[in-house]
């Protein structure tokens, strides 16, 4: 038993005490929290507004007749509600977040501060152009960074996330193919591709065909050669790929694609491994989206918003979507419509209402300026170094399907769990009890029971060593069939494993009052 300096036990004498249920249902700092609709009362609001009467004269006979059904709460109640909810989340600020392919790196707070400057945050997208010159200059400067870092001549800034950027890139390719008067209907993707790639190609009206992977986790050149043909519009390849490996045949791949008259789409989800060291333009890439929320660290925010600018090669630049940003003697100007296009521009359309994720642009540019070209390179190198360090430190107790070196993420499979009764899912859930967010599981699909670990450049060596120590001990426990910590994990969390089957069988997707009045029908 551990004794403190007063000679008293520093832990409760009996484990049973910890299991004693509390009267409130809360447990110390862990508070249970109802839904906002189960709180509050009529006639209370957290915002003070004058009660003005309005006539129906100019409402077209369409004034709302029924109550909306929202609860009324004061500001302190709302603040407490959301603070309590926040405490049920894991976050990169609180601990290592090794989600492979998701890139959970540190989010600098300077970037948050700058994005909130009124000149950016309180600027209307249709404000007169003379009143928006600083914002347009910022977009131009961010464009310069993106085109310089990628070695590509042009960039479309409006896509709002990675998948949206993919769609933009594929639609650009579609427009280029149509301009050539060709009927190319197929898009190739590797079988290890992320699901967005085939989904995007289908969304853009193409049929999808898979290219096989080699036992080394890379593109099977024979399979690619066989699948290429005069009806192929593009090959979509993630590089570094979804197994965390650099496609070493990439130049040959690009040549094969181009020789077949197709375009090389690169999924830039893993650009953070090579930024500052490799320019995709030098690899023969025609289009690549950049996840600003990954490589350039705009916060993930519990699932968005992201931003997905797309860099384009000379062959595709003319087809970039509206709006176009141009600079002339009068300053910056936006071309928002097809009526006054610059020479040669043939935009395929428009990705969204306005000019892109300005709030994310400010953050990403602040990140880039802070790092500089040397810091961006260093960040990529540290990310790759850290992933290889994890691979080297765990591969004797876990199982790595591919030889290193890896890029920014280390991939393991479930061979080491064979016959232990512990699954990849159990292993990952047990990490939660150890204070870690699990790694990406069961992706990529080409590896059985995949575990993809991306430490990023934001972790100190002490932090990596501790993580390695914990995972080693867990792997040894699993191999020794000491299953206690895996079965039913996690245990030390606000909620234990949730019943996803019943959630899908009988979906409950909103709160309802027990007796929702008929008038609301």
């Amino acid at each position, binding site marked *: 038993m551990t004794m403190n300096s007063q000679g008293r036990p520093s832990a409760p004498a009996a484990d049973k005490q910890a299991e004693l249920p509390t009267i409130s249902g809360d447990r110390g700092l862990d508070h249970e929290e109802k839904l906002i609709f189960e709180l509050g009362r009529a006639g209370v609001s957290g915002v003070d507004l004058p009660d003005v009467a309005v006539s129906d004269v100019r409402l077209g006979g369409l004034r709302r007749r029924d109550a909306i059904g929202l609860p009324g709460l004061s500001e302190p109640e709302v603040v407490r509600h959301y603070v309590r909810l926040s405490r049920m989340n894991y976050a990169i600020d609180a601990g290592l977040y090794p989600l492979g392919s998701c890139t959970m790196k540190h989010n600098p707070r300077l970037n948050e501060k700058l994005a909130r400057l009124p000149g950016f945050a309180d600027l209307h997208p249709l404000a007169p152009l003379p009143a928006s010159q600083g914002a347009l200059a910022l977009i131009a400067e961010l464009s310069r960074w993106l085109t310089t870092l990628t070695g590509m001549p042009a960039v479309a800034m409006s896509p709002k996330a990675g998948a949206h950027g993919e769609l933009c890139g594929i639609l650009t390719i579609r427009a280029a193919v149509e301009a050539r008067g060709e009927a190319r209907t197929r898009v190739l993707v590797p079988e290890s591709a992320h699901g967005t790639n085939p989904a995007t190609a289908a969304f853009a009206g193409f049929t999808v065909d898979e290219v096989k992977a080699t036992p080394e986790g890379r593109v099977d050149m024979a399979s690619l050669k066989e699948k290429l043909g005069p009806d192929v519009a593009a090959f979509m390849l993630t590089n570094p790929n979804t197994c965390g490996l650099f496609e070493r045949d990439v130049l040959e791949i690009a040549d094969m694609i181009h020789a077949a008259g197709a375009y090389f789409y690169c999924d830039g989800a893993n650009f953070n491994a090579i930024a500052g060291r490799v320019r995709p333009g030098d690899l023969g890439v025609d289009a690549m989206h950049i996840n600003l929320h990954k490589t350039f660290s705009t916060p993930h925010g519990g699932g968005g918003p992201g931003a997905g600018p797309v860099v384009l090669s000379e062959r595709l630049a003319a087809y970039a979507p509206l709006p176009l940003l141009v600079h002339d003697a009068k300053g910056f100007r936006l071309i928002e419509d097809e009526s006054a296009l610059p020479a040669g521009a043939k935009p395929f359309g428009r990705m969204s209402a306005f000019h892109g994720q300005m709030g994310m642009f400010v953050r990403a540019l602040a990140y880039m300026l802070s790092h500089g070209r040397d810091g961006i390179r260093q960040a990529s190198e540290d990310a790759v170094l850290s992933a290889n360090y994890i691979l080297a430190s765990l591969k004797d107790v876990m199982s790595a399907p591919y030889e290193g070196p890896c890029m920014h993420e280390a991939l393991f499979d479930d061979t080491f769990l064979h016959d232990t009764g512990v699954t990849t899912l159990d292993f990952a859930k047990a990490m939660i009890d150890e204070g870690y967010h699990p790694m990406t599981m*069961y992706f990529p699909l080409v590896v059985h029971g995949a575990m993809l670990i991306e430490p990023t450049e934001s972790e100190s060596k002490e932090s990596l060593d501790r993580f390695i120590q914990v995972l080693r001990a867990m792997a040894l426990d699993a191999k020794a069939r000491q299953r206690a910590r895996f079965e039913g994990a996690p245990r030390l969390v606000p909620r234990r494993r949730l019943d*996803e*089957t019943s959630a*899908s*069988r009988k979906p409950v997707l909103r709160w309802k009052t027990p007796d929702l009045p008929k008038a609301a029908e």
Partner: protein
Amino acid sequence: MSETRFTDQHEWVRIDGDEGTVGITKYATEQLGDVVYVELPSVGKSLAKGAEAAVVESVKAASEVYAPIGGAVTTVNEALNADPATVNASPEGDGWFFKMKIADASEATKLMTAAAYADYVKGL
């Protein structure tokens, strides 16, 4: 006298004269896990052998169910909409998906018998 035949995509079809009853095998349900949703074909739809006939979903997977033989859909098992778990509980009984009027009974002869399918699954 009915006879049940199997496909390598793990569908089964029970043949009763010119009526075929189609479902997915126990092996398929074990691979899928808990079935949460079944999308059934519309009655009257005519299906060629091998055409996509239905979709079966678990929490993390969705699989197409292909018509083991050609024909027109005559009845669908509406009970699965209310309780998709029936597919797990009784894949080759109450968990059937749809019935069809068989267009060409000779197609069935190319499908596996129960014994052949058992061997096939053993080899997977």
